[in-house]
């Protein structure tokens, strides 16, 4: 792994923060290994457990955890007390300007806004030049505008930071925007790890699919494969769909197919991968209509159709929907897991 941003994505309470604390040495895992740049920080079998102060890992806490009794300047200088005074002050000044807080050095944390506190916390974590920077839900406590600016600043700082950045979030969009690699967590631990495109396009299993916003998942039995065409039995009915890679499947295998609501399009009869579905509900979002369809009597599909593509559809009528082959994903707890994890 080169200098890049990695994200841990998962619902709250799934052990994401605990993972960060274990890496930083603030909590001790029951067993396993933590290795950073070929150095073992923790190894339960060999009895290695480096204390936090020797790990050289920067930690940005969700609630910033600034020292309330110290000024901004003193907070940033806290981790570099071993430097001579002149050098230390220079480094603090440099970091203050990096996070655009030059004029706030003498303030106390309680006198700063949330966004300002976070930038001070970031400067403080960067001061000792850590090998890894860990960010625990860095943007969840901020309002949208501050958040956008801080995200941009984080990317800027990351560009000239000589280490890895690992951050934890429950927000898929945030993880996707900021990171190149993602680890998806669920209660109990890691369920998929890979580059962000793979995670989004080829989730290893249904849990990952749900967590990454793959809302339409339906199950069937494979009844025929011919080239890129897959025939699946859905209860009493059959459906023929064209997919990118059905060859890995076998006849009579149970299969889950999934597609994001954003990829479903309205179609004319006769297109490939076309299904007739009844509209059962609709809500109006900022730039699209969110529709709920039902086909084959029991399968629900959610589709987000841009407002620009036509007037609002009428609930109770049936429409033809197109499921593009390149966006239709096969999910099997065994099928694509091996490939992407």
């Amino acid at each position, binding site marked *: 792994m080169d200098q890049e941003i990695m994200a841990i994505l998962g619902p709250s309470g799934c052990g994401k923060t605990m993972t960060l604390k274990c890496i930083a040495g603030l909590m001790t895992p029951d067993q396993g290994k933590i290795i950073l740049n070929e150095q073992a920080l923790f190894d339960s079998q060999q009895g290695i457990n480096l204390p936090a102060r020797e790990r050289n890992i920067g930690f940005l806490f969700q609630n910033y955890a600034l020292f309330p*009794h110290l000024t901004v300047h003193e907070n940033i200088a806290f981790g570099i007390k071993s430097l001579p005074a002149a050098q230390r002050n220079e480094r603090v000044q440099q970091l203050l300007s990096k996070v655009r807080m030059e004029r706030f050095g003498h303030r106390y944390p309680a006198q700063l806004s949330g966004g300002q506190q976070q930038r001070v916390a970031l400067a403080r974590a960067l001061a000792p030049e850590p090998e890894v920077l860990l960010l625990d839900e860095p943007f969840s406590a901020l309002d949208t505008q501050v958040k956008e600016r801080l995200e941009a600043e984080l990317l800027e700082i990351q560009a000239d930071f000589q280490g890895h950045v690992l951050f934890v979030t429950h927000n898929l969009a945030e993880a996707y925007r900021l990171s190149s690699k993602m680890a998806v967590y669920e209660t109990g631990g890691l369920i998929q790890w890979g580059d962000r495109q793979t995670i989004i396009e080829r989730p290893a299993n249904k849990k990952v699919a749900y967590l990454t916003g793959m809302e339409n998942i339906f199950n069937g039995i494979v009844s025929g494969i011919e080239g890129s065409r897959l025939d699946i039995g859905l209860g009493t009915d059959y459906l023929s769909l064209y997919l990118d890679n059905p060859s890995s499947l076998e006849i009579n295998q149970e299969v889950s197919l999934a597609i994001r609501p954003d990829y479903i399009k309205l179609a004319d009869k006769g297109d490939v991968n076309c299904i007739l579905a009844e509209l059962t509900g609709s809500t109006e979002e900022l730039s699209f209509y969110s529709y709920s369809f039902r086909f084959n009597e029991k399968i629900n599909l959610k589709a987000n159709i841009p407002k620009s593509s036509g007037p609002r559809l009428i609930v109770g009528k049936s429409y033809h929907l197109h499921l593009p082959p390149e966006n239709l994903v096969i999910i099997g707890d065994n099928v694509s897991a091996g490939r992407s994890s």
Partner: protein
Amino acid sequence: MVDVMAAMDLNPLWVSLKTVLVATAITFVLGIIIARWMARREFKGKSLLDGIFILPLVLPPTVVGFILLWFLGRNGWLGSLFFEIGRPVVFSWSAAVIAAAVVSFPLMYQTARGAFEQIDANIEDAARTLGSSEWDVFWQVTIPMAWPGIAAGTILAFARSLGEFGATLMLAGNIPGRTQTIPVAIYFLVEGGRQQQALIWVLVILLISFISIVALNYWKKHQRRFSSRPNREVTSDS
């Protein structure tokens, strides 16, 4: 009144000051160590132990004195030890210190523990990730952050040991110049019908206690400096 003052024996003042200062110093150190230990640890019987530490606060001082006598008296298991090495505790100046320390300990312990428990563990963790040893974390983060609480506890403990009467009288007795503190002196002056002299000691105690309370309020104000957010101009370029 001038005659009364001229004829006054100032010994109770010196005995009280000496006793209170030493007792407060002991409570200060023990209170901080035990409070810190209790604040960050979970174990079986923790609330029972906590109850024992708080008990002297709610017990009548005579009961505390009785229990201390039981431990430290000539036949007590600890007292007999001291008796054998020729330094009996009972009716000595150290008995006055012990009585004052025991009754004031709960105030120091409870206030300091509250202050430690209020500290966000993440802040101490932040210091650890920034390379601080446990010793540094304690002195540079925990103590400064808990300081207003510790100071308040110290003042309360000081005032309580200054006012200690019952346990002191039972354990240390009323030996002028050695164990006779101001509260004990007041009791015996009134009993002996010397109201005017008693009044002077009453005024001395009133003055010291009043100063303590003012100091306590000052610390509470100081505590607000970083525990809440002053609405000073927060510049808009956040």
